[in-house]
């Protein structure tokens, strides 16, 4: 099981065909093979959430998933969500609220926040805190992030109402 394995997947809408070692995790694959450095590696043991990406629509810890497990899957990273404009409003809310300082957790935080907003149209602050409680932020103290997610939820609800 140490020989490279061929995989085919879609990353941010682009097809990727390549060979990887079975032990390569998805975060390292995205960063080192595809040079998508927005997916950050903070702990490599699934705790900090900085490597959160979307695989077939569900958020996962890219450090806990092997690249070979993403064969035939659709992977979306922060670069993809930014370019498609899917989270432009959320990013604007983060900017307005200074909901990031060093920014290292931010891609994962945005992925997790967008996941909540897709599931729940009007989350209260406690639900937001609960949903983001798998994502470390060592800089902000979280309040600004909660504020930004809350205001985005409100704005989206107003728009779709």
């Amino acid at each position: 099981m140490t020989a490279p394995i061929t995989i085919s997947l879609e990353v941010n809408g682009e097809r990727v065909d390549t060979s990887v070692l079975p032990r390569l995790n998805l975060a390292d694959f995205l960063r080192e093979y595809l040079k998508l450095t927005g997916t950050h590696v903070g702990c490599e043991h699934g705790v900090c959430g900085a490597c959160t990406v979307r695989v077939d629509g569900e958020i996962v810890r890219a450090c806990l998933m092997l690249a070979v497990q993403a064969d035939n899957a659709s992977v979306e990273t922060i670069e993809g969500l930014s370019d498609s404009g899917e989270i432009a409003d959320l990013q604007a809310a983060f900017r307005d609220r200074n909901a990031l300082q060093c920014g290292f957790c931010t891609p994962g935080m945005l992925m997790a926040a967008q996941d909540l907003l897709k599931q729940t149209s009007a989350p209260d602050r406690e639900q937001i805190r609960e949903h983001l409680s798998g994502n470390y932020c060592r800089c902000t103290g979280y309040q600004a992030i909660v504020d930004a997610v809350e205001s985005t939820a409100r704005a989206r609800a107003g728009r779709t109402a």
Partner: protein
Amino acid sequence: MTSGPEKRDPLSVLDRPNSYIGKIVPRPNLDRLMQGRGLYVSDIELPRMAHVVFLRSPYAHAKIIRIDASAAKCMPGVVAVVTGQELAAVITPWVGVLSHLKGLKSAPQSAIAIDRVCWQGEAVAAVVASSRSAAEDAAEHILVEYGELEAVTDMSTALDPATPVIHASLGDNLAFERNHDAGAVDQAFAGSDEVVEAEFIFGRHTGVTLEPRSVVADWNAAEARLTIYQGTQAPHMVQNIAALHLGLREAQVRVVCKDVGGSFGIKVHIYADEMATYALSKLLRRPVKFVADRVESFNTDIHARDHRCKGKIGVQRDGTITAFEIDDLTGIGPYSMYPRTSAIEANQVVNLVGGPYVTQNYRARARVVFQNKNVMCQYRAVGHPIACSVTEGLVDLAAMKIGMDPVEIRRRNLIADDAYPCASPSGLRFEQLSHHAALTKLISMMDYDALRAEQAALRTRNIHRGIGIASFIEVTNPSAAFYGVGGAKISSQDGVAVRLDAQGSVICQTSITEQGQGSESLTAQIVGSTLGISMDRVRVILGDTDNTPYGGGTWASRGAGIGGEAALQAAKVLRRNILDVAAAILQSTAGELDIVNNNVVNASDGATRIELNELARIVYFRPDTLPPGIQPELMATRHFVPREYPFAFTNGVQASWLEVDTDTGFVKLLKHWVVEDCGTIINPQLVDEQIRGGVVQGLGAALFEKCVYDERGQLTNANMADYLVPMSGEMPDIDVGHVVSPTLETELGAKGAGEAGTAGAAAAVTNAVNDALRPFGAVITEIPLTPQVILTALGRI
């Protein structure tokens, strides 16, 4: 104290129309970070770059008898396996002492251990390979024979004669001792109505920057230059130290610091493995990258706050505090960290205890001892949480003893807001603090009386909530008194260069750095305001020793107060230069002109005279049309460091409102308030978020964070699953208020705000827990306040 600064200059940027000072302005660099398009050191790749992995000692203290790397050297992808002895050929050892900390001693430390390891995690060999995984694979094939030595782990017995001495040449395990005695302490205690004593215990904890320490070192043999890409808070310090120990001139070393994934003081130091990475690049003549993994981060990033401090307070029945006395003991690991030393924290504790209060009777002893644990050194709010927890814990105990409300005892003892300038019993000079204004504001923000009523009502229903108050002073804007006077080549001054480009935009190079605090934003705000140029036309360059003026960087809450003032002064000069050339072009005088919204205008009626774009065009492309003798200088540089006061002291007060579950020992934080005085506020949002982030780091120390070692010096919770930090689910909302007492030492008037949150949070929480537990007669003076600690105090386990 709530008024604005004295108006000293009618043209001060603080007063100008369209000033960005005091306004919430979005930071200019956020889109990059939010789109995942930042450039952290861990993202950097260079041609021919190799990766280094360090083989680290599993023992806390051991002789290195033999290293056999023969098998590892044959592994696929391996470039080299390098031992400490081999690396010593290109890099010299260092000793982490400063001359102004009298008696501070330490032993020579090498980039990689040579004969002996002194803590679990010290590197014994470096494996350089084509990929990190290849290097890790090879590291597993290095055979190291160790002779385990007895480990000194318990700081309370480190000085006992029976305890082995870690560095024989030093004679004992005492790294530093400072004694301080002011006033008439014995007399004061003897004359007190009550004297209360307690021992305060602080868990050793660490920064947990989300991006681990990372370095890419690139020795270009053809240029004889080393470029170091590093997430550091002090690029010029790194340049100086790297050059010194690699036998290079400073001009041969360039330090580049792009985005930094968290710092908090962790990245203001230079670590042995970083030094080794610089040296490996020079040795192997190619770029070498080191990125710590999380286990390495826990084992090698500096730890902090491992203190046991005995405290004593005297008080009269009327609430007058008569004296403070402390005896602080702290363990710093096997070496004093280089170049900032590991004695600063204990020194700060001595400096800061009792600081907010009037009493001049103060005795302190601090002893700093060596241990076979990871090194301890400066981390956010150095010494402040210890000093604040001890002081405010004692004040609450004194209040309880005499049956006085915790707010009332503070009102009676805090230094009056009109008593300044004055000095603390430890000799610190205060220019202007605002303890009473801050306390009054805090009490009003939190509606103290209503909370007390709620607390009483809930107690009857067996719900135990507590209120904790903590006043503090905070060291910011450090001058050369911090390090320079002790011989460290760490700049206390900062420099800023501003220039008008050929299209009328401004390029600003500053020696302060950005790790998320908003240095880039505040610099652009100050420069834009001073020049009358919109912020979207100001570009800030920082974090590059080749391209910024020489300076200290961003640490100890100095970015806004020192770097900001340099930016202000540089922009003033450029503004004058622009107006001089404008006057020549417009056949006017500089005094009759002003710059507003990117245009030179008439000072009198505001009428636009010339766009800066057009002025720049003439200066750069048609200087032939300028009058003879005019040589426009559209660039200006200024440097600044405070000289009159060695530090700008700030102050603040925090309050915590929480609930203790007396069955489980869990603490639920309900609300937290902070009032802080950082002088002139450049960007209210950035200041508030600095404070909130700082509070949460303090709350982590109060409730969760502790590096747990066993008796053999093994760190038993070196991962994020076992070392707990605050997450969004447990954190309360934090209300932040301000009192504004600008420092008169600068035109800007800004003092630092980075330490304030961390300084007082743990003290407020501990006091609140004790307040909640009052009906049970339990008093806790130990953090973190884990369920085990609380249930033990309650006699439940």
